[in-house]
């Protein structure tokens, strides 16, 4: 069903993306090390599809999303969006690319300026990138509000007067204002109630169908990713450990980390819940400023081998469209 909206055109191409944040310490603020938040990730996103990016807290999902949109100056690697290389473009030159790529933020409270009315917030991208007249802008803002299911009468209100779900709709309307092709959704539902989560996710799906949008959907909620994503990438400590289509990943996970992650999804049926065989990981995630030698997962992997502690696993294609970075498969 989803296949007819998908094409084989690659819209976003990420290659060896690295985002390291320097650590400064001491009196002279010497650079003493770096946090390797994103440490060499590569993937493609096809036009019209949703790529889910999952992983636990602090594994670099959000940083990856922001680095792809060049909200940070990336350390290394290349990002191509719609055929244009933006990895090393200086910030001022990125301005004309901005309408193609937009972002929906995690915390709808923090991502809206409390001093601007809803119309002003949604209209900001139009002010920046279009030369519409005041009346045209107003009309466009109101039609965007219709599209995300907000009452037109709310245009003059301020963000604090809305509920979390409504605020997230404002954020989505702002992202849609410039008719982007690619939207990074940075945990758009993490700060919302479960009942509202479903509404927002359905809204995102409807909009995708209507405008042919491409999403990078960042989340730690596996059930939600299973619902919305076409393909899923799993991240651990700054690296992509496994990437596969949704069906394959959820039915046949290859990487030990993916297996552990999937086994942690709660089972709604209490009878089945008792029988679930959970893989419990020992210990904590190592510090991204000092990742272990060899495979990043070797300190906690239940199937660890000698080679894992010395050599970095290569990324291999196990089956068509299913890649994993693990010594078990190389």
């Amino acid at each position, binding site marked *: 069903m989803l296949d007819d909206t998908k094409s084989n055109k690659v819209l976003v191409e990420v290659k060896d993306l690295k985002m390291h944040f320097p650590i400064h310490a001491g009196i002279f603020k010497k650079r003493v090390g770096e946090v390797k938040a994103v440490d060499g990730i590569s993937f493609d996103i096809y036009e019209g599809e949703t790529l889910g990016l999952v992983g636990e807290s602090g594994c670099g999902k959000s940083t990856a999303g*922001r680095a792809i*949109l060049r*909200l940070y100056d990336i350390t290394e690697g290349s990002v191509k969006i719609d055929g244009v290389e933006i990895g090393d473009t200086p910030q*001022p030159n*990125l*301005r*004309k*690319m*901005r*309408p193609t790529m*937009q*972002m929906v*933020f*995690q*915390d709808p409270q*923090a*991502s*809206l*300026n*409390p*001093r*601007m*009315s809803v*119309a002003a917030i949604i209209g*900001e*991208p139009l002010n*920046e*990138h279009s030369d519409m007249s005041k009346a045209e802008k*107003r009309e466009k803002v*109101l039609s965007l509000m219709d599209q995300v299911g907000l*009452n*037109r*009468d709310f*245009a*003059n209100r*301020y963000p*604090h007067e809305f509920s979390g779900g409504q605020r997230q709709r404002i*954020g989505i309307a*702002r992202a849609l204002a*410039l008719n982007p092709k690619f939207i990074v959704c940075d945990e758009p539902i993490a700060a919302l109630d479960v009942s509202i989560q479903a509404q927002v996710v359905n809204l995102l799906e409807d909009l995708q169908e209507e405008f042919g949008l491409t999403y990078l959907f960042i989340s730690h909620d596996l059930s939600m990713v299973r619902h919305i994503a076409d393909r899923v990438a799993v991240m651990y400590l700054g690296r992509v450990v496994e990437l596969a289509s949704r069906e394959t990943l959820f039915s046949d996970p290859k990487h030990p980390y993916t297996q552990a992650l999937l086994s942690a999804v709660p089972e709604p049926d209490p009878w089945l819940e008792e029988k679930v065989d959970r893989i419990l990981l020992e210990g904590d995630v190592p510090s991204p400023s000092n990742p272990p030698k060899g495979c990043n997962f070797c300190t906690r992997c239940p199937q660890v081998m000698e080679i894992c502690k010395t050599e970095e696993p290569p990324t291999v294609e196990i089956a068509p469209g299913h890649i994993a970075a693990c010594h078990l498969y190389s």
Partner: protein
Amino acid sequence: MTDATASTNVQAPRPPRNQWWDVWDQFKTHKGAMAGLIFFVFIVAAVYLGPYVWTLDPTYIDIRARNSGPSLAHPFGADQLGRDILARMLQGGQVSISVGLTAMGLSLVLGTFVGVLAGYWKRLDGLLMRLTDLFLALPLLPLLLVIIMLFRDPLRAMFGLETGIFILIVFVIGITSWMQTARIVRGDVLALKEREYVLAARSIGTPSQRVVMRHILPNIMSPIMVSATLGIANAIITESALSFLGLGFPPDYPTWGRLLFDAKDMIQQYPERVIWPGLAISLTVLAVNYIGDGLRDALDPRIRGR
């Protein structure tokens, strides 16, 4: 269409209302701010229009009335030379209020500018904040002496006696009082620029200067407003101190501060001469404080409508 039908009828969106009307509506509900505004308007009107009604020359010496108490001829009394105190208060108020407002404005603009630059652009931070520290560490009095020694005569020659001194005083007070504002503003900008809505603006492609104007400045309104209202009081009092030291306006030129200092020698015989200018200074400062308070509340949409 009235408001009642607009809220029930979804099809008719209300036309955009200028948000300054909302601000004014909220401002009106703040009783202290309204009282302050009325008093401030009254004082300003009195000192600027008063001399046309009370036409006595503030420098006219009526030697027979010297040291007299309130009377019909001199409602506030007369000073030790027999000059009418009401007329001197009115003229002094013109100078004090305009020095207070302009010097506050200058220090506010300077402080906000330095604070925003230092907070938003990391490269400028170290340099500008050390400059601020430098100004804070300067001994003010010798600095003022030097500035006034150097620039008093050229400015007088250029703009005339009173305007020259006015410009000098405003400038001197302005450049010696912006540091607190700069520090407060920098701190707030540092916190605000990490907020997600600033990141959102950058993801839209808004250039830095517009991010500052649209997202940062409106959100640091409260601390700026507070330091502005405190700044007026400070400027009026610094001007008094400068006049007292003989560095400000010439001795026969009345300002509220000078009236206060002239009268303090005879506070035991004629306490009312201290009370009039003292009261004028404190009430003006209080009124401005209340106006600032009301304005700060009115500009915040989260408080508005409560």
